[in-house]
């Protein structure tokens, strides 16, 4: 968790695998070519199969073009101006104290009630003291190991569980899937690997927060979670506190594999830097998330609260192959200032009697632009498939916009589809009603917005839900009036 320990780890891993590298500096010079891909792989001490895997992806990426169909606008990205590998910062480069940190960021930390020591870590300050959470993490790992659950970084998994990686990595999101997923396959920096064996219910909610070396995984994160038959795991990603990040482009890939009677619950709270008032400097978040329900009655539940990033391009999806498989998508997305989001889900019904539920709550304020884009496809063999979609948009102010773009493809006559969509504004009546009961305008807005999002917050693990509510209130401060 501390930058020193992260650096130690890198140093240690280099020593362990005994390789040397020609590149001396911590950060590669900008640019991308086969040598860079090889160098990343070498730097991480990867086995040959992994290097080849990356190269194959890179070569395919060269043949692809950047997608432009999403309803987001940004200057063209120069992929040759990006550095594709950066070791965790050394402590001497990091800010020395909270005095050097953007006061607005600190204000947010205080509002969220984050302890001082944690604020320092989030702000990227070198901390010498050993954290409680480090020891907590160690304890957690022990009880996970007892249950047979593997929870480690994807780099570790490439070494220690190469059979699982060979078998599953890229099996849900192949490198040919889309431009950003392909780029990720070529250059992914690190990420998380979770394996829950047959019949095991993971004894705790897993969170990257508890993984010591999860920080600084960089801009191309890769996550793979496998739940064997009858297994269950709940995974929390992200953090309500805005994290300082030097990288503008983020292109992550998340793959979930769920066997028969197994369930993965994947919750995300994303609060990356949205840019300044003009929208400058914010994070571009182009993510591919997909889960594959391979067995009968397999279940995937995506829950996301997205309040950060300048641009979000994200469609967590479910492939419902097994008979009676279930896919769920619960989403709250907030766009304010100059933020743009094109987000939604894909529910691909392949097996018989598969069911899916989509609840999407979009909130736009300021000049925020938001598009819900969702695909529900009922295949030829998906007899008795059912989908319920509910898309609600809430507008605050008169300069924001919200669009809903549902794609529905039904190829079986027995399918049962429901689609509800609403767009509403926080009405003056509602505000006046709350205020006449003694609540300030800001409290009123926050209360109405949280009420609007309730169905989604109900799906979040308890502590996360409380934090998400707080986060939402802070995000929308000053949005009205």
């Amino acid at each position, binding site marked *: 968790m501390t930058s020193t320990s992260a650096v130690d780890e890198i140093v240690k891993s280099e020593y362990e695998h005994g390789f040397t590298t020609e590149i001396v500096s911590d950060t590669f010079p900008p640019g991308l070519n086969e040598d860079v891909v090889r160098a990343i792989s070498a730097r991480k001490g990867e086995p040959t199969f992994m290097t080849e895997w990356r190269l194959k992806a890179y070569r395919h990426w060269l043949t692809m073009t950047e997608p432009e169909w999403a309803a987001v606008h940004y200057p063209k990205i120069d992929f040759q101006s990006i550095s594709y590998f950066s070791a965790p910062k050394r402590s001497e480069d990091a800010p020395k104290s909270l005095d050097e940190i953007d006061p607005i960021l600190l204000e947010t930390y205080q509002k969220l009630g984050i302890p001082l020591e944690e604020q320092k870590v989030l702000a990227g300050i070198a901390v010498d003291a050993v954290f409680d959470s480090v020891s907590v993490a160690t304890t957690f790992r022990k009880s996970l190991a007892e249950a047979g659950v593997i929870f480690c970084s994807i780099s570790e998994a490439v070494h220690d569980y190469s059979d699982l990686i060979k078998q599953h990595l890229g099996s849900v999101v192949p490198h040919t899937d889309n431009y950003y997923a392909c780029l990720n396959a070529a250059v992914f920096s690190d990420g998380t690997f979770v394996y829950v064996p047959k019949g095991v219910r993971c004894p705790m909610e897993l969170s990257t927060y508890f993984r010591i070396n999860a920080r600084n995984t960089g801009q191309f994160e890769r996550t793979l979670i496998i739940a064997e038959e009858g297994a269950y795991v709940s995974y929390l990603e992200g953090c309500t506190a805005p994290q300082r990040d030097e990288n503008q482009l983020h292109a992550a890939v998340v793959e979930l594999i769920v066997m028969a009677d197994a369930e993965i619950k994947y919750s995300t709270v994303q609060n990356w830097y949205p840019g300044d008032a003009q929208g400058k400097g914010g994070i571009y978040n182009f993510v591919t998330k997909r889960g594959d329900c391979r067995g009968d009655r397999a279940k995937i539940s995506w829950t996301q609260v997205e309040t950060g990033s300048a641009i979000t391009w994200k469609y967590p999806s479910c492939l419902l192959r097994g008979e009676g498989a279930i896919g769920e998508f619960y989403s709250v997305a907030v766009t304010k200032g100059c933020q743009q989001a094109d987000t939604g889900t894909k529910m691909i019904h392949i097996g018989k009697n598969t069911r899916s539920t989509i609840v999407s709550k979009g909130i736009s304020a300021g000049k925020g632009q938001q598009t819900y884009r969702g695909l529900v496809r009922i295949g030829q063999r998906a007899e008795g498939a059912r989908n319920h979609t509910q898309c609600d948009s809430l507008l605050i102010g008169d300069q924001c916009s919200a669009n809903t773009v549902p794609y529905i493809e039904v190829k079986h006559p027995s399918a049962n589809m429901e689609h509800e969509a609403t767009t509403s504004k926080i*009405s*003056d*009546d*509602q505000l*006046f*009603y*709350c*205020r*006449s*009961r*003694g*609540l*300030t*305008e800001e*409290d009123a807005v926050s*209360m*109405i917005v*949280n*009420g*609007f*999002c*309730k*169905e989604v917050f109900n799906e979040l693990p308890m502590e996360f839900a409380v934090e998400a509510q707080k986060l939402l209130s802070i995000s929308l401060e000053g949005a009205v009036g």
Partner: protein
Amino acid sequence: MLVVNGLRANVGEKEILKGLNFTVAAGEIHAIMGPNGSGKSTLAHVLSGREGYTVTAGTATFNGQNLLTLEPEQRAQLGLFLAFQYPVELPGVNNTYFLKAALNSIRKSRGEAELDAVSFLRLIKEKLKILHLDDSLLKRAVNAGFSGGEKKRNEIFQMALLEPKLAILDETDSGLDIDALRVVADGVNALRSSERSMIVVTHYQRLLDYIQPDYVHVLAKGQIIRSGGKELALELEEKGYGWIDAEGQAA
């Protein structure tokens, strides 16, 4: 407690209130009656601080404070309460949570300690008992999917909980059948005290059979054209608003 003096107010260019004068002392109940469009609801809204009205002249002071420059929440914090003619739905906002936030916001503004969940729940149970309400409405979202009667009862429940010094009931009787009307009136009567004043705005005399006012004012075309005791309401019921109109025009 409330002194209204020469109050004039516009909606857009149109003058709705044309110079109102009346005084409500502590513990008094005043009924404001009048035909549709006479300015009854406008008066309720202007006093509680709703946007969309421009006060062009006159004053309204509440316990010595100028009401008209205050935000709606500040008026509520001083002890003013408006029971809405059309209570607003807040989907997803739990009624108990809403009331706790409202009460604590008011307590905070007065420098009182905020109530914790346990003491709040105790208070809420006590108030339900006084009003003979069951606790099912506590678990629901504020007014969402409530029947007309439930909404009005919820307003009175909020009033009981927030313990205002001055409550304005804006056509609380509208849309209620006789049974619901009695429940609401019983609630209001249970909250009568020598400390608490009320302004009951109504179109019909009916409500005043259950809530006995100390004074009745008749509003027509933005002016109080007649004030009197509770017998004025009965006279009005008998003769209709036409009688007042005719008298008003004659005058």
